């Protein structure tokens, strides 16, 4: 079974790339592959270049070094990635000390500034707290502090705000924006929330059934989506700014089972704009505009009046 199939993309320093998709689209698996963290018995083939180095060729020592010093990962539920019986301050200190960049004393001295940097109030007192004494938003901040404490150059955030309330989400998004600017790091934001991507990302990768179906600059993807999946997804969400009550465009059916994918284009059973060719031949991810790629035989620009058809 191929959870992820033929993914190619690049991220630059200072850039925030959003990977969007529904559950089972392969977006999380893609992120785990980058760190070679795919659960057994998963296998990765291809090349993952970090600068000049291929992550897939690294020795065990090198990959540990890479994961610890170059990359930080932020998960949806910080509770599961923190040790419940250790104090928050100690865990951040440990995260820094584990990776040789700082001495023990330096690490200790940096804990409070790190927490202040992620805007945890009363950081001096809070380092003595245990994770459960933190609220969800505060835990996520602490997690971010832990992640960025080594000044990573790549930050992978997997649904970082999904478990949070909307007012807390807003502040975490602001924090991620600032942190990425300060670190000049490359950021990969994995999410199901298109609106978040619009708010934070420079570029977007849309995934469906383990494939990239569309990618390009955020503005192009939102203003001029070419793949029917992207187009429908954008119209299936209620928007705060909608006027009156337009009926939502719904995508019929359910995402396919990765074990038995349909022939041809993987989206064709749910697509309203399909042609005969879509049933038999899978389209390549082809350029539709400068920098914008889509995996579709039809493309939305060739569909007159798509709203009427849906």
């Amino acid at each position, binding site marked *: 079974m191929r959870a992820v199939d033929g993914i190619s993309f690049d991220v630059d320093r200072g850039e925030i790339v959003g990977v969007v998709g529904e559950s089972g689209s392969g977006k999380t698996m893609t992120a785990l592959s980058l760190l070679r963290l795919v659960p057994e018995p998963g296998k990765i083939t291809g090349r993952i270049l970090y600068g000049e180095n291929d992550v897939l060729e690294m020795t065990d020592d090198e990959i540990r070094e890479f994961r610890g010093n170059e990359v930080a990962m932020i998960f949806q539920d910080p509770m599961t990635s923190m040790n419940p019986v250790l104090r928050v301050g100690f865990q951040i200190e440990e995260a820094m000390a584990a990776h040789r960049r700082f001495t023990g004393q330096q690490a200790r001295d940096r804990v409070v500034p790190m927490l202040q940097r992620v805007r945890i109030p009363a950081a001096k007192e809070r380092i003595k707290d245990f994770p459960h004494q933190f609220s969800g938003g505060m835990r996520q901040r602490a997690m971010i502090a832990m992640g960025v404490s080594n000044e990573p150059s790549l930050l992978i955030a997997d649904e970082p705000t999904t478990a949070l309330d909307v007012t807390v989400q807003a502040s975490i998004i602001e924090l991620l924006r600032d942190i990425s600017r300060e670190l000049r790091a490359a950021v990969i934001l994995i999410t199901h929330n298109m609106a978040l991507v619009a708010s934070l990302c420079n570029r977007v990768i849309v995934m469906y059934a383990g494939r990239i179906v569309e990618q390009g600059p955020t503005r192009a993807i939102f203003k001029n989506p070419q793949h029917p999946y992207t187009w429908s997804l954008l119209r299936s969400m209620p928007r705060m700014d909608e006027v009156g009550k337009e009926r939502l465009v719904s995508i019929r059916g359910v995402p396919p*089972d990765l074990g038995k994918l349909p022939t041809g284009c993987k989206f064709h059973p749910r697509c309203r704009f399909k042609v005969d060719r879509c049933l038999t031949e899978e389209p390549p991810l082809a350029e539709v505009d400068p920098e914008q790629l889509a995996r579709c035989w039809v493309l939305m620009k060739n569909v007159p009046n798509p709203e009427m058809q849906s």
Partner: protein
Amino acid sequence: MAAVPSTVEASQEFLISELPEQSSLGQDAWRRLKRNRLAVVGLVIIAIFFVTALISIVWTPYPTWRQALGTTYAGPSLLHPLGLDDYGRDILSRVMGGAAIALGVGVGASFLASLTGIILGMLAGFFKGKVDALISLTINIFYGVPDLLVALILVVLIGRGLFNIILAIALTGWLGMARLVRGQTLSIREREYVEAARTIGTPNLMILSRHILPNALGPIIVQATYLVPAAIIFEAFLSLLGLGIPPPSPSWGRMASEGYKALQIAPHIVLAPCAALSLTVLAFNWLGDGLRDAIDPRMRR
């Protein structure tokens, strides 16, 4: 409700016409059980003992009570494959007859204890409050008294018949079941589908029987399976103390207790019933373990 609408988009558009055939939860568990070698071995042993027990009711090589069939304490021979005991009775016949008693006591006591435990446990867990306080208090008091003492008192009071022994064992065995079912009920009653059942007006009795019991059945079956060997051992123990099923019934426990006096000169007298007892108990425990893993794979340690 009006006739089937044609205007409603949902009515036609999202009909999902295909749905992969999947096995039910029960079928899944059965498949996992079949893959567990020890459980299958246990199941086969239990089946053999059951058949033997059934046969022994209508036929044994010799009557189980007939004495002086040959020399007392005689070892195994062609006529008496397991030998004769201290009264010259055929041990094979008596082991066969013992199977009926052991399984009767085991299954009977397990059934009675489970029934009591399920009813009281569900009532306590579902109604909480005073009902729970009363039932839990009873359970805790019973837990405080040694099982043997409870059984002894009861046997002394009502006598030693087969049914009385079953009753005595069940009286101590229901506690664990009641605790288990109470805990299960407490957690299941908070599930959303039970809340949903209340919002659609399902009466309490139906909530218990239709929603709570079927979802607690897995652990209940496992517990009931473990209760069988526990009851068999308990009966053997009572017999060993001379408080079991009265002679000349061929209970394995009393066969062992009678035989151990002659352990030095005729060890086969003790060996046969003990082997049968151990094998049965082991088989039920293997089956219980297998069931536990098969019904809920996550429960495995």
